[in-house]
């Protein structure tokens, strides 16, 4: 049983997707329960796997019993096991929180939405778990195609934005495929552990043009997929016009899982010393990351609705992760790994809170007056997410910034360090502007009192969402503190276990 855990994290989602598609014709009412059960099983398997891997070390499962390099293997080392638990937990939270929304937004297409939701979650988890470079490409496409389909269901421009995302996303995935082609050409293998050994024997990235080209093309593909600065234009449109549950699922997962693939590429496929051996690539990556941080922060300042603002913050967070991965030292890479987890939780918490706010007010800043009185619990979660984005100590956002900053300073990338600090300041402006509106502006329908006297404020919790939406949000918000308090554990037992020793 325990040997099969890596595949059991993904299998319930795939079977669940088939089951809800078939259930559309059999017994439609059970579909929500079936999908929730699939997600819960997957989450349970991931947690068990994480506990087991952290206690006993890496578990590998050979699909179909074929050992590598011939077969596909699913590898759960401390990093991927914890990532699986986070991804499945996030998917479960979003699914439980958006029950009412799914049922009202897509009354006739429930089953299709459930199936796509499960497939998107399965794709993202498969990307994390797989140990085979080509299988990774297929799973990227599984995750992306179901992502395009659920993001397309939304208001006015959603279809066009999603189609645009499809063009850019397929371009990025194709580049990844091309890069894998060059790797295969040089090594004759597709299994990551095997590839890594053969690349080492060949003499590393610098030894041949084809290997360097493979590295560069794969990097470019991943940067397109994770919306790093010059390739970012699809992200804000695709995530802001779609229905809220779709954005709340895809936003925390896609960019973070792609950042995970980047870390995997650096640590497991090439070794860090190899991946950082070309100074031009490091300079380019850190430069683009700096640009992404600044661009995301300043565009976020100009936005007037909650979800669009979060989308631009997401762009600058991508800069954090890419920059840290190419600083060329242990602290930077540790910061990137920790920030993948931290940013997943922060984005989850903020997008869930934003979808509650949107449901009650429409999500424009001008309609959010009196928010803290009208929706106290949602606002509390929004504050937690905001403070974590700013980087206030007990929350997890602080610790990733700490590692990234110390990495940037010891690498001498003062521009990147400056961008990190500046983006924290801008985040503070962004979130305190919302807090100011929520606390001090009168709620719509309450005419501000004027000189004549104070109109009665709305009753406490007037627009608050039902508990079914608040509990997942509360879990997400408290996980920010939990991940912050456990930062030392995550850094030593996860990042420390996968980063090769002896790295400066």
């Amino acid at each position, binding site marked *: 049983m325990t040997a099969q855990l890596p595949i059991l994290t993904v299998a319930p989602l795939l079977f669940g997707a088939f089951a809800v598609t078939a259930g559309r014709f059999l017994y439609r009412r059970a579909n929500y329960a079936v999908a929730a059960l699939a997600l819960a099983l997957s989450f349970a398997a991931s947690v068990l796997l994480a506990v087991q891997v952290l206690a006993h070390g890496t578990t590998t499962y050979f699909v179909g019993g074929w050992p590598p390099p011939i077969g596909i293997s699913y590898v759960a080392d401390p990093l991927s096991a914890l990532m699986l638990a986070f991804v499945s937990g996030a998917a479960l939270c979003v699914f439980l929180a958006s029950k009412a929304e799914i049922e009202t937004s897509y009354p006739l297409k429930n089953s299709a939405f459930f199936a796509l939701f499960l497939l998107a979650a399965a794709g993202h988890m498969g990307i994390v778990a797989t140990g085979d470079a080509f299988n990774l490409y297929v799973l990227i496409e599984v995750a992306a195609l179901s992502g395009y389909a659920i993001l397309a269901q939304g208001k006015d*421009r959603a279809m066009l934005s999603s189609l645009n995302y499809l063009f850019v996303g397929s371009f990025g995935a194709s580049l990844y495929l091309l890069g894998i082609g060059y790797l295969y050409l040089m090594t004759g293998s597709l299994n990551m552990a095997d590839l890594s050994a053969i690349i080492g024997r060949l003499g590393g990235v610098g030894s041949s043009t084809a290997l360097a080209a493979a590295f560069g093309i794969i990097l470019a593909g991943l940067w397109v997929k994770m919306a790093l600065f010059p390739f970012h234009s699809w992200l804000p449109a695709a995530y802001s016009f779609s229905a809220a549950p779709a954005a709340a699922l895809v936003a925390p997962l896609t960019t973070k899982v792609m950042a995970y693939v980047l870390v995997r590429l650096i640590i497991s496929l090439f070794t860090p010393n190899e991946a950082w051996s070309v100074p031009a690539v490091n300079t380019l990556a850190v430069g683009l990351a700096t640009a992404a941080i600044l661009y995301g922060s300043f565009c976020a300042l100009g936005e007037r609705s909650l979800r669009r603002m979060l989308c631009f913050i997401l762009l600058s967070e991508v800069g954090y992760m890419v920059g840290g991965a190419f600083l060329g030292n242990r602290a930077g890479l540790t910061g990137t790994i920790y920030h993948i987890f931290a940013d997943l939780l922060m984005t989850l918490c903020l997008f869930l809170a934003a979808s509650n706010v949107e449901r009650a007010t429409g999500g424009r800043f001008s309609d959010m007056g009196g928010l803290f009185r009208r929706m106290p619990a949602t606002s509390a979660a929004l504050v937690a997410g905001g403070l974590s984005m700013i980087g206030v100590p007990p929350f997890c956002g602080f610790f990733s910034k700490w590692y990234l900053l110390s990495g940037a300073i010891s690498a001498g990338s003062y521009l990147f360090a400056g961008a990190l600090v500046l983006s924290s300041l801008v985040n503070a402006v962004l979130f305190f502007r919302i807090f100011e509106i929520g606390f001090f502006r009168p709620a719509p329908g309450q005419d501000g009192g004027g000189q004549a006297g104070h109109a009665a404020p709305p009753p406490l919790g007037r627009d608050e969402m039902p508990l079914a939406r608040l509990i997942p949000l509360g879990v997400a918000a408290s996980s920010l503190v939990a991940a912050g308090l456990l930062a030392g554990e995550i850094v030593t037992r996860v990042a420390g276990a996968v980063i090769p020793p002896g790295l400066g």
Partner: protein
Amino acid sequence: MGGLLAGFADAFHYYAYFAIMMIGLFAMIAKTNLLKKCIGLGIFQTAIMLFYVSMGAKTGADIPIVNPATGTADPAAYANPLPQVLMLTAIVVSVATLGVALALIQNIHRDSGSIEEDEILRRLRDE
């Protein structure tokens, strides 16, 4: 000059796949018609498939099965089947991508009455 030409002939398929890939990329970027963008994406992906298949190609190669007369298989006699098998998967993926893209285009056309990107954006802005 002769050496350069010989090098070109040896690596001909790489130049070919790259040229085809750039044609696809050009269509994806420069065309405003959504269907033409889709065609460009198709060309782009097909070029990568050609690259994979060409790396396993071999003149006079046999199918990779055990020879019943000798009971053994001679790896030198057959073309590497793995790239072709990988590309079967990639073809499935690209068909699925195209399917999703066409479904989206159909819906866009139903909603806005056009498949020209700038026309759709103008109509959205006018509303």
